[in-house]
């Protein structure tokens, strides 16, 4: 026998019909689910590295320009930021409940929880829009027309550049998540998921929790640089 290979009749696979969601190149639905899960985690690793570049820039400039960082951070609205943090944590809760509902095969509950997650995500984005708008009204948009009253105007501009880059990239991820969830909700409504197969809901959940965690880092780094002094 060349290469020590033996012909393999995988009769146990063909003995019963395939699940409709199983793709032809996988042997079993479980293999497919494991591949998706690993793929999603690896994707999240790439996302960590993607945001990592911005976090590195943030870290270096914060060490270089602590006063400008405090000054820039005080310009952000801690109430809106705090409100959004609560909203996003809430959306992670509803997302987790959506995944649980899908796992236990409850169709309506899955749909309701997904819609609740999307509603909370949308709330976050609307609040974020008003935060951006107030920056625009104050002339705090980085670039040639940047305007800031203070001794460290240039350095504050770097802070605000990073603020926009980091929160903007985060908001973009939320918008992508929103689109993703619209599709998943529709699929859930059509009854595509069952106890045997709910991988897309689980994967969207992983993605959404990741986006949430990014914000958990962004909020203190951007909004809470110098709040302790204000309280005294």
């Amino acid at each position: 026998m060349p290469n020590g290979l033996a012909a393999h009749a995988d009769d146990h696979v063909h003995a019963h019909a395939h699940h409709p969601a199983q793709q032809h190149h996988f042997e079993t639905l479980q293999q497919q689910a494991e591949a998706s899960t690993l793929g999603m985690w690896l994707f999240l690793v790439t996302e960590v590295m993607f945001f990592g570049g911005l976090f590195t820039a943030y870290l270096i400039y914060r060490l270089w320009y602590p006063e400008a960082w405090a000054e820039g951070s005080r310009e952000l609205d801690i109430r809106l930021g705090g409100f959004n943090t609560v909203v996003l944590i809430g959306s992670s809760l509803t997302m987790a409940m959506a995944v649980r509902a899908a796992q236990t095969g409850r169709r309506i509950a899955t749909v309701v929880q997904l819609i609740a997650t999307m509603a909370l995500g949308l709330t976050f984005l609307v609040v974020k829009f008003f935060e951006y708008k107030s920056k625009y009204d104050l002339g705090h948009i980085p670039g040639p027309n940047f305007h800031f009253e203070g001794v460290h105007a240039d350095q504050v501009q770097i802070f605000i550049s990073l603020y926009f880059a980091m929160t903007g990239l985060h908001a973009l991820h939320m918008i992508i998540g929103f689109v993703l969830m619209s599709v998943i909700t529709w699929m859930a409504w059509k009854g595509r998921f069952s106890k045997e197969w709910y991988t897309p809901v689980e994967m969207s959940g992983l993605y959404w929790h990741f986006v949430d965690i990014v914000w958990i880092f962004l909020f203190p780094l951007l909004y809470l640089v110098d709040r302790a002094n204000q309280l005294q």
Partner: protein
Amino acid sequence: MTTTAVAESPVNYLNVRHGVMSWLLTKDHKRIGLMYMVVVTLAFIVGAIFAGLIRIELATPEGDLVSSDTYNRLFTMHGIAMVFFVLIPAVPAILGNFVLPLMLGAKDVAFPKINLLSWYVFVVGTALTFGAMLTGGVDTGWTFYPPYSSSASDSNVFLTGIGVFVTGFSSILTGLNFMVTIHRMRAPGLTWFRLPLFVWAVYATSLVQILGTPVIAITVLMLALERVAGLGIFNPALGGDPVLFQHLFWFYSHPAVYIMILPPMGAISEVIACFSRKQIFGYSFVAFSSLAIAVFGFLVWAHHLFVAGISPYSALVFSILTYAVAVPSAVKTFNWTATMYRGAIWWKAPMIWVFGFLGLFLVGGLTGLFTAALGLDIHIHDTYFVVAHFHYIMVGGAIMGYFAGLHYWWPKMTGKMYSDAAAKVAAVLVFVGFNLTFFPQFILGYLGMPRRYHMYPPEFQVLNVMSTLGASVLGLGYLLVMIYLTYSIFWGEKAGANPWMATGLEWTTQSPPLPENFPETPIVTEGAYEYAKRETKVA
């Protein structure tokens, strides 16, 4: 010998469907591999034309063919085309796509739709970048250093940057897809230490693609925003730091060298074992050296910044780590040599390309140690010495390795055999032409000729003329490869399932393979290179 044991099916992956749409909408990893080959080859031709123009300009000391501004654009676009659109995708996206699932005994990669998406993303990125080249080009050097790139250059930096950014996602998705495929799609019995070394190399490469590419993506994005929206993150006039860009850029772009060289090294391992008719010497050392290169590769980036004003203490650490990364490469080279020792060398074309690879990679690797030395680097930094060094690695190593792999798997991909004599002539032409092109550049650089200028003092002319002459021979060599490979598609002899009598799952199915690779999922019961167990007589 049971090479003809495979029952031929009239249906294979090439003739199962016809028409343009059957290619553009395919999810077959083999077809996607070929589609990458088309785009990469076009990019290679464009990049080679830029290189040719550079060498013609440098045949005389005066700047008589092109202006200095045009020259800046030529070497920039040569670098961008070759690095991002040829070297990085060549082996993983072409050969990897084609043979990886076959080597694993799988029907396809884990995510066939994402695989096709990667190709489209690659095409969009290529279109954007080459569109930028057609509409004026870019003159920053392929490294895009700010503040020149962000505020001074009047060329198409933004569009090129976005093209590179987009292309990066193709690379990320391919790496992700391969990694999941290797973890989850192996045939029954195919344990990690039975995997062909090409798979280990692709795995290590995927690791670099996944961890490194997102960083260059965000860096180029920041640069593009800086150029368009006037942010100041890298602009010293606004308190930003251009050296931060260099750190972030090389955090990816140095490991990217290993994206280019690791997969060809994997192909070399396959070819050397097959054409020495021997088990590879020190299998696990070769396998783990791939991973070691991937890991150490992330810890050496600042050796590109030795003259950028970084702290001497960190320079010291990066210099030592750079020496360390040479160790796993040396392990591989010694093991390949030991594999050939007392092997029954079969003098076929793929092996001739391997010999070329070994010689050139050795020179490239050893001169890398020169540039890792802190004191010496100050002398040779930004001279032709560095140009020669990285071409020995990237062309002498990566491209020779790609061709070794291509000549090895070509009969599998097309079902046809090319002319062995023509392939040997091409390998020798490329080897001679390459050395004639780049060896003089070591001397030029050592004598102090800086890179990236379109004129030079007359005393450097003899060596430059040699280099230009060599480039012409090199070009002829590549042309010859394209001619006889194309010829073989139409008029080549039928190759049969296993023309090299090689081990490995990919050789147990017919050539060209079935649409879903194997008639039945294979079961593996032994290691990858059991040549000793096969009674084969080779010419």
